[in-house]
């Protein structure tokens, strides 16, 4: 088990190195930082002097190694716009995004399993056909359109739910304010969560359905029937456990992807998270912040996937993590 963890850690480091390299290469090629820093009224000599001081005239490799050295110590550069460390800026926005992803994940997990199982058990029933039809629609409509549509229906026409912002959040600790502590917070996070879930949910319903239908054709399900086992137990113990094994793997990747999808959702709902921040940073050509965002998102990806692999090893008895380290 420990050997496996160490191995995974090395893989994670390799991935992070690759991400940081790409991130840094972007920074190096995205315009002149001096223009953002000092404006146009400074003379060329002063500029050269500043470049030397900032190390911008060093070779690419020297600059990259310096960048890496700083990054390891938690310094991902300073945001041009906010004039504070880029990582701090992101950390202030991170909780809002993570809560949004959590909200969407709760919706996806809570609905995809029952819907997927139902449509697999009764593939020809009318509700199944409606669910499958709706899932195609859900996958096909882009997130921002779903979001705008929901704002129009539930905020503008019906006045049921607020259309933007986080509303009345409750402070927990550090930079973390939560939406899940009071009714106003729940009301604000509901629409963005649904919008964010609108693509992943149908995907998972279809994935679970397809896996479940395959498992239901298996010999061991037939054998369980031949033993006189109750259908409820066959579906939810024999079949579902086997169904969820591949779903867990896909799920890990999708949670990471969802962090990226938040850019659209947060922009439409003016959600003060890091996706919204990223788009603003792009508009302001705030390069250090863009690079820091890429690295933080890459880091979230790597961490969730490592955790998912560990969970998979615990759930699937045929995977022996202790032996995989060797």
């Amino acid at each position, binding site marked *: 088990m420990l050997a496996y963890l160490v191995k995974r850690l090395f893989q994670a480091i390799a991935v992070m190195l690759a991400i940081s390299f790409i991130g840094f290469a972007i920074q190096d090629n995205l315009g002149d930082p001096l223009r953002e820093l000092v404006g146009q009224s400074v003379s060329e000599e002063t500029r050269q002097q500043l470049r030397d001081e900032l190390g911008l005239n060093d070779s690419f490799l020297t600059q990259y190694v310096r960048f890496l050295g700083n990054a390891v110590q938690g310094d991902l550069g300073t945001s041009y716009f906010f004039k504070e460390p880029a990582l701090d800026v992101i950390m202030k926005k991170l909780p809002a995004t993570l809560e949004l992803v959590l909200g969407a994940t709760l919706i996806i997990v809570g609905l995809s399993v029952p819907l997927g199982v139902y449509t697999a058990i009764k593939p020809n029933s009318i509700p199944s056909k409606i669910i499958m039809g709706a899932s195609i629609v859900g996958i096909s409509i882009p997130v921002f359109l779903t979001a705008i549509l929901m704002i129009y229906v539930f905020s503008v026409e019906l006045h049921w739910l607020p259309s933007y912002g986080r509303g009345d959040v409750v402070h927990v600790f550090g930079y973390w304010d939560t939406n899940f502590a009071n009714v106003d917070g729940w009301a604000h996070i509901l629409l963005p969560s649904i919008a964010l879930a609108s693509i992943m949910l149908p995907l998972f319903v279809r994935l679970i359905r397809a896996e479940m239908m395959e498992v239901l054709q*298996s*010999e*061991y399900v*037939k*054998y*369980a*029937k*031949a*033993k*006189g*086992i*109750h*259908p409820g*137990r066959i579906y939810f*113990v*024999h079949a579902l*456990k*086997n169904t969820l*094994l591949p779903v867990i793997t896909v799920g890990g990747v999708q949670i990471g992807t969802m962090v990226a999808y938040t850019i659209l959702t947060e922009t439409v709902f003016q959600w003060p998270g890091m996706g919204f921040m990223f788009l603003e940073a792009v508009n302001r050509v705030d390069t250090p912040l863009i690079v820091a965002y890429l690295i933080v998102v890459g880091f979230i990806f790597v961490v969730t996937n490592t955790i998912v692999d560990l969970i998979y090893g615990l*759930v*699937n*008895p*045929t995977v022996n993590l202790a032996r995989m380290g060797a």
Partner: protein
Amino acid sequence: MSLLSVRDLTVKFAMRDQTVTALDQISFDLGKGERLGIVGESGAGKSITGFALMNLLSRPGFIDSGSINFEGREIAGLSDKEMRPIRGNRMAMIFQDPMVTLNPVLTIGQQMVETLQAHRKLSKADAEQISIMKLREVYIPSPEDRLGQYPHELSGGMRQRIVIAMALLLEPELIIADEPTTALDVTIQADIMELLLELCTSNMVGLILITHDLGVVSQMTERTLVMYAGRIIEAGKTREIINDPQHPYTQGLINALPQQTLPGQRLKQIPGNMPGLTAIPDGCPFAPRCQYAIDNCRRTRPETVSYANVEVACHEVNRLHNTVLEDQSA
């Protein structure tokens, strides 16, 4: 009063544009504790017979007509819910490949306990005690430890022993074993068969053994059905069928056994293939491959007749028998 009595059982498969007959009016009986072999080529309807008895045909297959009387009760038309107390309890099944019959994510103990608890009100501890006892009966070493193990931690032979133990858990009256050793190593096949025979005789359990191996049938069973293209073409005491087969198909099967051929010679085989379910000829289904076939064989379907201690479905059995005798005396 027999344990199982099957009359004119017909199973059909509803395909997109037509309905094909997979089992055509088969009838047979099985007494308490009796062992019956069903032999035939792949696709002859052996396994379908087994699944039809358990009412486990999956779509598009269905029982079209006929009756299955088990322990004095008609079970052919029962729903899944009505069949559940019978399955695994009064009538158990052993599947072909033990590598895929056990659920990979549940322990042996969980799978045995759930079977007991599905049919009897037992605590987990009591159910585990019964499971351990049954595992011991099938000669599983240190059965207590096996309960916590997953199927992938055990060998194929071991798994099939466990499946046999599971079949015996609720002391059923009938075990249907569908080619129980096909997926196993040759060295283990004999052990498993011997074990199955021993347990069936000592517990007075009826056995329907589905196999394509005539050698196994001759050692294991008292009576045999020979199936071809969804029909029973010959039925009788195993000894009679092995020693004095009447139907040309059965004769072909026995001649094809390696024991019937001298070393170095090619094995004798029956020419041609069994017809697919969509293309069964009108007359005798075996006629296209039969060297004795006459016009009548191709036109009308042979009725089952008693001949020389067996039941056989062949027009020409009389003439054939004499020809074979002449051949042997010549």
